[in-house]
């Protein structure tokens, strides 16, 4: 299966914690260079992405389209910088191109796009699209007797979208236990908190009532995430939803739990302060 023209990637990280740290660093640079938004949303899911790509998903950067790969959709496409950074760190493409994010003529758009980007399974950006598509993929896999898993990462604010609730009904009805949803539950939307905008609580009970296997974890705790995402957590006949309790802006103290950093781009002293804060938390 080795392709001499495409040597196996050399990962610069050894643990998922290191991967998450590197994703955060790339993402801060990307939104700084691109003067773009959504760094708070990326930092919120950096650990989830690192665990998924570093320890859970069955993927091969040398064969990004292999038929039995696990399929992952970032439905909260505005955090696409996180996916680009993760894929680059996993060897799907060079980390060098990350600097092109948001730049004129680039293919690394602000919301994640699959065109000419190996490893990006699906393009998103408008919220509420990823889960219905993955319901179709999971249904197809069931019908075909395939054993790959179908994974969707939603934001909590995204759960306002009615299309997600159509899919929340669909998946348990069709017993799609090959479907895994992770909700990035950082409790902040783009303007205000979830509680002040459109409350979701009790989210776990709602999804359980719909027929989901619900697991609640610390969305920055790698061991908890790994255990919840493991195949051993699957309940036969039920789709699984991990409610990942997260902190928007996680890892950069002045960005944490602040709606400001949904749209604000770190420039000047703020950028320097963010990189310095990150350096202090570099995994040993």
């Amino acid at each position: 299966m080795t392709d001499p023209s495409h040597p196996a990637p050399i990962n610069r990280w050894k643990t998922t914690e290191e991967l998450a740290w590197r994703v955060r660093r790339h993402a801060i640079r990307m939104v700084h260079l691109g003067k773009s938004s959504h760094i708070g949303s990326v930092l919120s899911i950096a650990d989830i992405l690192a665990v998924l790509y570093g320890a859970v998903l069955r993927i091969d950067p040398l064969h990004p389209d292999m038929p039995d790969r696990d399929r992952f959709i970032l439905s909260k496409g505005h955090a696409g910088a996180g996916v680009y950074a993760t894929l680059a760190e996993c060897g799907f493409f060079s980390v060098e191109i990350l600097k092109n994010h948001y730049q004129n003529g680039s293919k690394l758009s602000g919301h994640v796009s699959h065109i000419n980007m190996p490893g990006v399974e699906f393009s998103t950006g408008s919220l509420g699209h990823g889960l219905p598509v993955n319901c179709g993929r999971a249904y197809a896999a069931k019908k075909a007797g395939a054993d790959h898993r179908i994974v969707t990462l939603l934001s909590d604010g995204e759960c306002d979208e009615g299309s997600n609730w159509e899919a929340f009904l669909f998946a348990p009805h069709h017993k799609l236990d090959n479907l895994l949803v992770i909700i990035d539950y950082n409790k902040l939307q783009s303007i205000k908190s979830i509680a002040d905008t459109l409350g979701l609580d009790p989210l776990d009970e709602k999804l359980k009532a719909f027929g989901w296997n619900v697991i609640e974890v610390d969305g920055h705790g790698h061991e908890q995430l790994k255990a919840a995402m493991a195949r051993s957590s699957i309940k036969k006949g039920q789709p699984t939803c991990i409610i990942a309790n997260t902190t928007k802006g996680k890892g950069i103290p002045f960005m944490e739990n602040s709606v400001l950093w949904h749209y604000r781009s770190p420039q000047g002293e703020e950028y320097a302060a963010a990189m310095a804060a990150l350096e202090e938390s570099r995994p040993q």
Partner: protein
Amino acid sequence: MRDSFVAALTELAQQNERVILLTADLGFGIFDDYVKKVPDQFLNVGVAEQNMMGVATGLSLEGRVVFAYSIGNFATLRCLEQIRNDAAYHKANVNVVASGGGFTYGQLGMSHHATEDLSILRALPGVTVVAPCDAWEAGQALPALAKNPGVSYLRIEKQTPLDTSQDTKPFMLSKARRIREGQDICLISIGGITLQAMRAAEQLAEKGIAARVVSMHTLKPLDTDEIKHAIRDTGAILSIEENTILGGLGSAVSEVIAETGASIPFKRMGIPDTYFSMVGSQEYLLEHNGLDAKAICEAASNLVSKKTT
């Protein structure tokens, strides 16, 4: 037309196990035979069109040939962004099928008048837009669309007495069909209203006007050559559609005429830029909007009288 679509789909699904039909809980009774023959290739997703179009995209990306069915605007406008972002951008083979084009469900009220679908779907890059004129075209279009890569939109109507099956030429997407010959004017029509165009052509013949009738079943990609032939051969064109006057067949035809630089008598006939609260059958609403055979005949006569040669 709808029965012909279902029969053709049933045959196709029996031949190709990758074919799957999705419905958003509409089509009571019409799919019974299909379900009996290919039960594993049918999925009623419930009254959830956005999810249906997402599921359709997901199935297609896993290699299935998907037909996603509903009526009126539910299969299109209700889930337009899913058609655009999910299916079309990802070049998924999703065939969106809407029954009840135009005023088919005239009495059911404005919510059920599918009168802007052709224009709106035409604007989406990469989407093939088809509205057959009769049952034969519907039956022919279906396997062609299944093979056609990317997203297609098929607008069908309940029934029409028109029958163009005597045509010996094969049906091809994007290849307009000349279903009546004539040299004095060309009536370019799309969908079930082509029946009115054919009736108008008969009335015109009684006045000594030989009208060509073209079934422009594929609005996009458009058969521009056939329009250029009409300019050259007949020197007058009347476009006819049961769709808003804005952005549909008439607009497409006028774009071709304008860009060829031709100066010929031309008129668009379509639904005015308004919503209808008036109750009425399809025939009643067509007549009310000046889209029946009599009105088409009058409009065509006027155009012919303006010809300079």
